[in-house]
């Protein structure tokens, strides 16, 4: 499958055409069609690539394509003092992990493109083409991120999706809040990227290569840094900083809720399904590195679970439908990091996939609701929409059940796998995760209840025709005739995603339920160093890949040298990445845990139903009773304010302080030396005028007066001169004659 580089390139091409020509010349039909076509083509290519990948035996599932040299080879020192070769190709690699992600991105991406053709229909032609250009550009960068075979190509996608996120959040650029949110997202992401890129530098310095596979193989040969905080720990910590930025984890999560300023399809695609999971993906890509740094793994797990819990608590009290979903996304991303942190890489990736389906579904559903309510996002002004939006209601209900973890929907399997693996690793982290699951079920059903059940609380409308009613919404709807079901392109997308949300879980059926956990087996090769795979039995096939890979430039030879001696350590690492087989539970225990988590979810749902449908006054009473806590939660723990007061204000203050310093002190020194020069020149001017020039003038005056006397002799009469000459000659001749 040498054409995998075409997969990112197709949307890129679409973006280029729409961006250069489309904004000027294309109508909505052409622009939308172009964007959807490129995505469809990318999806078909991806499916074909996936098919070809599945055909291969498990150990050899890898396509490498290196298009061109990007940064040509240069010598550069490594940390051990030897000189390595620094070189980066435009290289793409399809392996199980990237294949799964590829399908998610192209699949969900394609559906959201289709959805957007309807959702964005009220924009002007140029803005419409611009939207699709951005959206296609996003897919281009996201696919680059997924397919990149080395850190730097991934970083290209990584920053590129950040740019697209910025552009799309600020799509309605005339709105101050939108452009603020876009800027915030970009800058916060940049802080994370800073960590990421430092991590990349350290990776090169340590391993002499930036190729994922080569790094993983080399790291596989190193001992696990169990005792102390070594270089791999530092690398992984820096990479994790990058992941917290992109995937909105503590402490860099603040941009994601604000990012809801963007159009809803954008929130669904970028801020739920794909881009924000890039951090999880990146950790998964470097699973071998991470599993060699247990300290950092613990940090990842703790940050993940704390983020999950904190975001869930904030989500409890939000009233903006998209913000609830945004905090829910942060929370679910926390889950994924939790999975990564306890070594359940496959479970995290699995949850990433299922989450992509149901969260995209929920966001698109909320988009349909917002569309129906003419731009209204406040759930307090909704209610009882079930009868107006039947399709939206059913599909969103599926999504909600999935996220709450109700079997047999997809969320159940992935979430349960994470909880199970967490339980094996640490009981108290498991406890926090379980609480989060309860909260998740609660706030999601709160959302459903406030939106679809109860009494209608929105603006009134007149069922008549053609009369513009002064309702709630103002976002471009000329006349609003009450809530209405979304157009076909939107509902079809919702239904397709709902199918995904139902079925996606079955690929990860746990063994306890007599499934074979196909996805974990499928993904396993991406999370292990190749020697580990070789050690565990598939010796000849892995050797074949080794030979194939040795044609690549910039491979680290150290791994090969140390391969023999470190087999034992690798075996340990492989075990470690399996999450510690020693603490395995019996099948009954595992099923017990499952039942427990289902029970938790049901409790959450029940409570939400009681609070918000059966007896809405309870919620209000609780809010009044715990007013302090409610205020803190409503204000998102004041984290934005804290950052504003410290980081932003500190930066601005130091900026203006330094500007004053620059103008007064640095430039003052320059101007001061200028003034000093002027002063000393004035002083020497005086000196010059009265002393030096005075002397000169004195000499001149003396001469002048003397010359006045002598000039009388100059009569100007030639004959006088001739006479004097004659006398002179006469005198000289006489003198001569006399003195002889």
């Amino acid at each position, binding site marked *: 499958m040498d054409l995998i580089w075409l997969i990112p390139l197709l949307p890129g091409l679409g973006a280029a055409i729409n961006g250069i020509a489309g904004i000027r010349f294309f109508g909505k039909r052409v622009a939308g069609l172009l964007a959807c076509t490129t995505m469809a083509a990318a999806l078909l290519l991806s499916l074909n690539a996936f098919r070809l990948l599945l055909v291969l035996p498990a150990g050899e599932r890898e396509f490498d394509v290196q298009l061109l040299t990007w940064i040509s080879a*240069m010598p550069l020192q490594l940390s051990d003092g030897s*000189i390595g070769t620094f070189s980066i190709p435009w290289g793409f690699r399809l392996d199980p992990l990237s294949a799964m992600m590829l399908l998610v991105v192209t699949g969900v991406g394609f559906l959201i493109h289709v959805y957007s053709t309807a959702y964005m229909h009220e924009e002007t032609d140029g803005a419409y083409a611009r939207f699709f250009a951005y959206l296609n550009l996003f897919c281009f960068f996201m696919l680059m991120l997924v397919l990149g075979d080395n850190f730097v190509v991934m970083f290209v996608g990584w920053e590129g999706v950040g*740019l697209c996120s910025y552009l799309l959040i600020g799509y309605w650029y005339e709105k101050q809040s939108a452009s603020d949110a876009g800027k915030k997202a970009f800058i916060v992401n940049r802080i994370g990227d800073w960590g990421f890129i430092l991590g990349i530098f350290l990776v090169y310095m340590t391993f002499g290569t930036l190729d994922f596979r080569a790094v993983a193989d080399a790291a596989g040969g190193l001992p696990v840094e169990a005792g102390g905080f070594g270089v791999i720990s530092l690398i992984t910590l820096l990479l994790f900083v990058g992941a917290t930025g992109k995937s909105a984890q503590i402490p860099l999560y603040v941009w994601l809720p604000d990012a809801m300023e963007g159009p809803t399809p954008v929130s669904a695609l970028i801020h739920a399904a794909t881009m924000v999971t890039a951090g999880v993906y990146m950790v998964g890509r470097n699973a071998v590195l991470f599993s060699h740094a247990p300290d950092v793994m613990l940090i990842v797990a703790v940050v993940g679970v704390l983020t999950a819990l904190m975001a869930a608590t904030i989500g409890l009290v939000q009233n903006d439908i998209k913000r609830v979903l945004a905090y829910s996304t942060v929370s679910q991303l926390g889950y994924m990091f939790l999975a990564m942190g306890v070594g359940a890489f496959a479970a995290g990736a699995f949850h990433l996939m299922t989450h992509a389906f149901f969260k995209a579904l929920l966001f698109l559903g909320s988009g349909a609701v917002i569309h129906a309510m003419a731009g209204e996002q406040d759930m307090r002004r909704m209610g009882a929409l079930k009868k107006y939006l039947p399709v939206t209601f059913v599909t969103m209900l599926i999504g909600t059940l999935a996220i709450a973890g109700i079997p047999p929907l997809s969320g159940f399997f992935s979430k349960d796998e994470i909880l199970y693996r967490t339980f094996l690793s640490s009981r108290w982290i498991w406890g926090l995760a379980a609480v989060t699951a309860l909260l998740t079920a609660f706030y999601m059903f709160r959302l459903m209840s406030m939106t679809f059940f109860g009494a209608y609380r929105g603006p009134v409308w007149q069922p008549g025709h053609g009369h513009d009613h002064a309702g709630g919404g103002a976002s471009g709807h000329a006349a609003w005739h009450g809530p209405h079901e979304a157009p076909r392109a939107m509902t079809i997308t919702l239904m397709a995603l709902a199918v995904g949300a139902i079925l996606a879980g079955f690929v990860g059926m746990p063994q306890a339920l007599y499934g074979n956990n196909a996805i974990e087996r499928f993904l396993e090769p991406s999370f292990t160093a190749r020697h580990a795979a070789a050690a565990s039995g598939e010796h000849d096939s892995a050797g074949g890949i080794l030979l194939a890979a040795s044609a690549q430039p910039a491979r680290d030879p150290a791994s090969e040298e140390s391969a023999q001696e470190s087999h034992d350590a690798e075996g340990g690492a492989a075990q470690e990445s399996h999450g510690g087989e020693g603490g395995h539970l019996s099948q009954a225990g595992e099923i017990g845990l499952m039942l427990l988590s289902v029970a938790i979810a049901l409790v959450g749902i029940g409570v939400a139903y009681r609070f918000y449908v059966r007896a809405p006054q309870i919620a209000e009473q609780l809010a009044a009773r715990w007013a302090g806590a409610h205020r803190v939660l409503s204000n998102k723990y004041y984290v934005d304010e804290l950052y504003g007061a410290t980081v932003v204000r500190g930066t601005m203050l130091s900026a203006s302080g330094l500007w004053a310093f620059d103008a007064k002190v640095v430039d003052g020194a320059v101007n001061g030396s200028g003034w000093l020069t002027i002063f000393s020149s004035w002083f020497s001017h005086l000196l010059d005028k009265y002393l030096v020039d005075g002397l000169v003038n004195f000499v001149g005056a003396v001469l002048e007066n003397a010359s006045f006397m002598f000039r009388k002799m100059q009569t100007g009469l030639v004959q006088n001169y001739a006479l004097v000459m004659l006398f002179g000659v006469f005198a000289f001749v006489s003198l001569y004659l006399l003195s002889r």
Partner: protein
Amino acid sequence: MSNAANFPILSLTLFTPAIGALLLLFIRRTQEHVIRWVANIFAVAGFLVSLPLWFWYDAGERQFQFIERLPWIPSIGAEYFLGVDGFSVLLVLLTTLMGVIAILSSWTAITERVKEYYIFLLVLQTGMIGAFVSLDFLLFFLFFEVMLVPMYFLIGIWGSDRRLYSAIKFFLYTLVGSVVMLLGILAIYFHHAGVTGVYTFDITKFHQMSAPYNLQWWVFLAFFLGFSIKVPMFPFHTWLPDAHTDAPTAGSVILAAILLKMGTYGFIRFSLPILPEATRAFVPMMVLLSVIGIIYGALVAMAQKDWKRLVAYSSVSHMGMVMLGMFALNPVGVTGSIVQQLNHGISTGALFMIVGIVYERRHTRMIAEYGGLSKVMPVYAAVFMVMTMSSIGLPTLNGFIGEFLILQGVFVVDKVWALLAGSGIILGAAYMLWLYQRTMFGKVENPKNEALPDLNVREFATFVPLIILAVWIGLYPKPFLDRLVPTVTNVMERINPAYASAAAALAAKDCADNQPASAFLTAPCGDAAGGETASPPSLPSTGEAEPAGQPPPASQPKTAPHDPSPTGAR
């Protein structure tokens, strides 16, 4: 492709603008249209004439190329000695290109004293090219000074606000530096004469000389003052915002894109290879000043209310990055530094033109006067966005390549420097995006902005080559990087010899790998695989020349060590 006919291409490139300036002298000053056309034609001609340098340059050759050598002042050994390596080829091409762009962008901006304006611009052009192609130190100094005069008048006559103050500040500040630099040049000159008995200003001779450490130390300080004012580095930067702010648009563009490169060019061409020991000794100071410059410039840029001044301070920050990479003293850092110089020329030049375009329409540079321009000037907004992203180093655009290489190069030397410098990148994103938001986003609130016309064809045409270059360098910088290999290897040979042999070996390998390739895809490197001078023409795997630990290529015949027969048979 090579310069087979020994064509004096460098002199031609050098004097084409000067001839244009001469010709302009004979055109009546009232015929402004003719003057504009003639100036533009000569600028374009200058670019076209310089273009063969890109194709004829041979990246496999370590020596200077396109040499022209005539006696100039024989009594003191000064010569008219021109020649280029990869670094100066790129800078010359950047100069001729930016010359075209600057002259084209002034079409409507300059309405008074048109004739003098174009004459000064063309003379400036000759001065800049001259400085880049001189291989005689005295000739370099001559051109280095020649540039000051037209720039002084450009700022002083066609500038705005405090133009006289800025022009004089610019002139005096730079002059102070160059006078001290001249002392350094003379010290080197007399030392060389004392050792060898030959009085010469030949730079290639200086490159082979090893001066005593004490002398190097003092000469480095002298060069440092001359070049770091030009760069400008942190404490010497204050002339730059003033000069930029008050200069006419084309002046700012040339100043940012080319003139500042004189300083960095000087460091790489003179300080590093002539004074290697002193360079190594001064690394901590240089790095400290660079890092301060990066962060300080970015922070001060954030506080600016004047659009052009903001871009000027961002220049300070970016040039700090360039200096930082250079003083990593390894191939990656130095290459990144050179690439970043080109990038800075492209992106900051474009940003100044962007300011110039609205300044021409509105006659104010205050950020607060603008807002919502995306609505009225969409094409302009798009160009601005591309250049903003290029400036803050978004991957796939040029800025990333430079910054990435620089930071990677610095990182292996010291992690803390890279950490601090990286924070400058965050701040860079912050002030550029904030600027973009304040000017382009939001609603159009100022009624004066409501009817601003978008870019016309001429204005758009000035941006097209810059955007193309930005994307090209971002996506496929190999032709540029390959052309820099000889320069970097030569510098490394003086300053960090371990890298030089490794670099030469890599270049040889690269040449052998992709032999027949167009000049657009890679740099041409000699006629045959053995054309490179650095590595011996024996087998490519002779131990130390190979990068450490590289496994021997699979294609190598295994029987070679056992085969006692002479190798000529293969």
